[in-house]
Every structure is written in structure tokens, then in C-alpha cells.
């Protein structure tokens, strides 16, 4: 028995984060697809609604938010699935560290890989949809604060459904309604700052949501994982 020093939780957290990023790097699809999906869904709107720049400009913020929300939610499925299937999830549950941090590490890595690219590309798509130029910053910042909330909430749903053989759309049906408050805040921010409201107020609300969901969502996900692995 070659025994090393026992690991502090911070090291276990970092190691889990690094592992998940490494896996994402190897499975490039997981990185590229949410981004592509976002792009494709957004580009359906000029086709389906109207190529008219003014009309697009009015709906741009909402469309971008909804597309980001869908892309985020649909990419969530891969958060725990592979780990569930190969048994790594059990190893995670059996680690001597609070599951909260392990789940948080996985959430962070997942958002970095599938949420952040969407946020980063959003100004480009906002331009293509003719969003008023004053709103770029608002959109970008609200997405930056909002998409992690969506990920954290989504991860509860994923954790609940990871054991299901056939999932289909159940994840969406469970998690989409939960995302409504974030969606409202994000899109209101874009509209109201155009009418002169201060951005700081909305950012504060989103920030509060982010903090609350960082504090609580991983706990719920952890509990859900224990249930699913049972």
C-alpha cells in the first residue's frame, strides 16, 4: 500500500474540474454542438419571422435569450450521463468530500464549455439580428450572469433524470418552467435599459439569483444524484 496524503476538498474540487474540462476537450462535440445549436436556432428566426431588420431588432433580445436557454438546457443532458453509465458517478458519491463541491465543479466546467461560448458569440448574433447597439452590453452581461443560473437549475433536472432509460423531452418539461424568472429578468433588462432604466438594478437581481443558485442548486442536484444512483 503506497499511501499519499489525504486530499483537501479544494484539491478534489480542482481535480474534478480539470478532469471534466479534459473530457470536454477530448469530446469536441460537446463544446461545439451547443454553440452550433444556438447559432442554427437563432438563424431560423429571420427565416421564419421576417428578414426585415427593424422587426428583427425588436425581437432580437428575446430570441437570443430563448435560444441560449434551449441550447443550455439541451446540452445539460451530457452533464452526468457518461459518468452515470461508466460508474464514475458512484465514485464521486463515495468521495470523502462534500458532494456539493463536486457537483459545483462539474457545473462550472459544464458552463465554461457549453455556456460561455454561447455568451461570447451572442454579440455577433445580436448584430446579425439588428439588436439596438446600446443593448449589446446589457445583453452580454445579463447572459453572462444568467446562463450559469440556467445551468445550475438545469443540473437539478438532469440529476433527477440521469437514471432514465428513455428520457426524450422530459428534461425540458421539468426544467424549462424553472427558467422563467431568469428569462424575464434578462429580457426585461434589455428592454428597460433602452427606456432609460439602470442596468445595475437588473444585474443586481441576476447576481442575487446567481448567488442563490450557487448556494442551493448543487445541494438539490447532489440529493437528486443520490436518489438516481440508488
Amino acid at each position, binding site marked *: 500500500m503506497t499511501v*499519499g496524503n*489525504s486530499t483537501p476538498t479544494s484539491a478534489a474540487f480542482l481535480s474534478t474540474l480539470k478532469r471534466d474540462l479534459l473530457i470536454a476537450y477530448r469530446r469536441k462535440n460537446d463544446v461545439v454542438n451547443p454553440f452550433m445549436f444556438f447559432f442554427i436556432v437563432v438563424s431560423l428566426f429571420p427565416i421564419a419571422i421576417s428578414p426585415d431588420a427593424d422587426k428583427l431588432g425588436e425581437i432580437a433580445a428575446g430570441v437570443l435569450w430563448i435560444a441560449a436557454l434551449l441550447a443550455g438546457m439541451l446540452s445539460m443532458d451530457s452533464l452526468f450521463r457518461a459518468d452515470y453509465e461508466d460508474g464514475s458517478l458512484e465514485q464521486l458519491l463515495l468521495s470523502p468530500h462534500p458532494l456539493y463541491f463536486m457537483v459545483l465543479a462539474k457545473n462550472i466546467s459544464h458552463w465554461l464549455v457549453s455556456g460561455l461560448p454561447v455568451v461570447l458569440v451572442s454579440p455577433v448574433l445580436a448584430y446579425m439580428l439588428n439588436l439596438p447597439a446600446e443593448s449589446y452590453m446589457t445583453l452580454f452581461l445579463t447572459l453572462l450572469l444568467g446562463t450559469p443560473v440556467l445551468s445550475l437549475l438545469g443540473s437539478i433536472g438532469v440529476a433527477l433524470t440521469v437514471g432514465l432509460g428513455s428520457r426524450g423531452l422530459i428534461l425540458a418539461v421539468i426544467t424549462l418552467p424553472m427558467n422563467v424568472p431568469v428569462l424575464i429578468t434578462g429580457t426585461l433588462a434589455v428592454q428597460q435599459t433602452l427606456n432609460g432604466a439602470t442596468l445595475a438594478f437588473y444585474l443586481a437581481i441576476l447576481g442575487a439569483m446567481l448567488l442563490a443558485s450557487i448556494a442551493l442548486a448543487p445541494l438539490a442536484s447532489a440529493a437528486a444524484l443520490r436518489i438516481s444512483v440508488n
Partner: protein
Amino acid sequence: MLSAANLFCERDDRVLFQGLNFDIEEGQVLQIVGSNGSGKTTLMRILCGLNDGYKGMISWYGEEISEQIENFYQSLLYIGHRVGVNKVLTPIENLRWGCSLQAQLEDEQLMEALSTVGLRGFEESQCFTLSAGQQQRVSLAKLLVSPAKLWVLDEPFTTLDLRAVQHLENLVAAHADAGGAVMITTHHDLKITNLSKLDLG
């Protein structure tokens, strides 16, 4: 170290076991035997805290297990039917993460463990290019470097070839000799002295 008192478990209205009492002490190898579906896997998962559909009392060094779950997990190594090897990572990356949850180890130690289980030359191949037996070996490499005192191994011999089986048996015996404890299921006859058996029927 680990003891169970009056365990009862029922699945799908069928009682798997009831009134089950046993202890595992340092230096002991406990083989759980029983036919398919008799509840071996279920019992192991209950003991590890992966399944809470049971009644009864499980204690770790005399105290109730839920009171000191972190100590217990620090001393536990569980390898189940699904071995916890990610297919896109390489053996060394898998081992690095698997161990990092319990202990901080140098890469050299990990490399040495991998070559001991016969994976020299495969350290940097992604695991989906490995055969099932080789993947099993990746998970067994953990046995060589883990600080855990209690090993819980659910059918670890599946897909292993004869030499690997022999090697693993030696490992189990050595772990018990060094003061560890092992709980194991297998349909195979273990050639280990000081083996106790628990029969689930």
C-alpha cells in the same frame, strides 16, 4: 471495523435478506456468495451508502455509519459492476482523478501502478481503444495506490484473463495480511487462506 446488525432489504416486494448480522475485521477477507439475483450487489451498495432501501444498523468502528460518513469514505474503495473508467480519458488520467478524491499522489506512483497491472505502453491511449479486460485493469490499478483500508469489490474477476486473476488474488491476500479488509463477490473459487464466507442463498 465494519459491522451490520439485523439488516433487512426488500426489492420489488421480494425479501432479499433479513436479520443479517456480520462483521468485517482487519485482516479479514469476506466473500459474499449466492445465486444470481440473491442480492450480493445490493448488499454491497447498501454497505457503501449507495442504496438506502434497507432497515437495520451499519456501524463503522462501533459508531453508526451516517455519523462519520467522511471517515468511512476516506477508508473505502468500492469497485462495482461499472468500474468508473471514462472512455475518452487515458488510463493515467482516469487513475489520477480516481485517486485524487482520496489521496494526493505523484504521477510516478500512478505510472508504476499502471505498469504493475500490465498496462505499460497503454498509459496514453484513450480507454475506448482498450479491451474490456484492460479497462478492468485500469480500475484495479487503484488498489495499488489507494490508502483505503476496506476494499469492496463486486465481481472484479469478470473479463480478466487467468494471469490477471492470479495477480488480483495475491493482491487481495497481501492487503489482508497488511491489516486491510476485503469484501468480495465472485462465482469463482478463491484460493485465499483466512477466507470467510457469507451466503445469501
